């Protein structure tokens, strides 16, 4: 009985310690981002890795998600004779919910995992220690540019995903199912407002980007210096990242209604 409580206490202290280390880590990243040198070169390279290389998967996924929303929306709205509102349904669902969440999940799988694996293998091959020996802060040189690149790329990828999904919905709803194109765009544009929908979408994608960046880089730098450590960091990033995104999505929607 006492043993069980002891284990619970031990576990709780462990969780608090872990959160503390994570906070110190995040503070370190924020400090190196705020202070010179700004390492523009490194940031551009990382934006290429995170953003430009994710373009293909984001655009393709956006197109298919928009197309399937067009199909589902059309068939289910037609039951109520409201298939004219297809644009509004596609637009609202994408901007408020599916755009930020699906983009974040895709980026976690494509770029977050790569980020964690890269840093973890640098830990394994003692490259981070090498940087420290040359008195280069690995957080400043390796971690911060990656984290910032994620924050820059996520809202842009989100916007591209949504626009491509609009086109996907248009292709299915208008070109394939024969709805009126003008009505599709009019109902879409009338349903969406900047203050509620677009700003909320941006807020979500910024929060998700920051979360993935922190999780991926933290899991990478704290990984065991072994081969299994690299795989554990990669898996952990994808699993924790995906769950945290979905939880925060609910919290943001519940708190601010976006």
């Amino acid at each position, binding site marked *: 009985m006492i043993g069980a409580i002891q284990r619970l206490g031990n576990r709780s202290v462990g969780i608090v310690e872990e959160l503390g280390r994570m906070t110190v880590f995040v503070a370190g990243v924020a400090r190196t981002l705020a202070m010179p040198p700004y390492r523009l070169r490194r940031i551009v390279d990382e934006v290429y890795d995170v953003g430009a290389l994710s373009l293909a998967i984001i655009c393709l996924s956006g197109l298919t998600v928009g197309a399937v929303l067009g199909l589902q929306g059309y068939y289910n709205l037609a039951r109520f004779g409201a298939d004219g509102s297809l644009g509004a349904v596609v637009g609202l669902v994408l901007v408020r919910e599916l755009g930020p969440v699906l983009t974040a999940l895709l980026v976690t799988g494509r770029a977050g995992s790569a980020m964690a694996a890269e840093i973890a293998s640098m830990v394994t091959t003692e490259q981070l220690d090498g940087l420290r020996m040359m008195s280069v802060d690995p957080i400043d040189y390796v971690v911060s540019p990656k984290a910032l690149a994620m924050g820059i790329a996520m809202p842009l990828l989100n916007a591209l995903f949504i626009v491509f999904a609009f086109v996907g919905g248009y292709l299915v709803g208008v070109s394939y199912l024969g709805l009126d194109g003008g009505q599709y765009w009019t109902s879409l544009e009338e349903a*969406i407002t900047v203050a509620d929908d677009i700003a909320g979408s941006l807020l979500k994608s910024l929060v998700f980007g920051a979360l993935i960046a922190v999780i991926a880089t933290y899991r990478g730098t704290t990984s065991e210096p072994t081969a299994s450590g690299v795989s554990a960091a990669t898996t952990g990033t994808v699993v924790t990242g995906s769950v945290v995104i979905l939880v925060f999505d609910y919290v943001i929607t519940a708190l601010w209604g976006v």
Partner: protein
Amino acid sequence: MQSSPIRDLIVGLFVVSGLLALAYLTFQVGGLSLRTRGGFTLYAAFDDIGGLKTRAPVSVSGVKVGQVTDVELDDWLRARVTLDLDPGYELPIDTTARIQTSGVLGDQFVALEAGGGEDMLRSGEEIEFTESALSLERLVGKFVNDAGLEED
């Protein structure tokens, strides 16, 4: 990592296309306008606006000439609707504003019908003649009532 001009170009293209998508969502889809559109504003008070919302279109003879920018209650508890019209149109002073529905269950919009007056409406003035939204329930209720009266 070696710096490469091609990679820089791709990153630049990515950022530009992302910002363009964002701008499209904000200004075209979201309907944010940075400047006043140079058009003119009219007001119209209705007894019942039904389901009219902001950003609903305003049309003359079916042609869209502006949109609803605000709906509020005036001092006499009537619905005061602000109409933002595109520049270049002139409407006579005896114009009628009517709330209509596109299709049977479609969205509602404000239809303006020009009268034959000599003077023109100026920006900020109120349209005097208005017709409220046609309520399906009220219509059915009226029909049932009338039928009941005739039987007596």
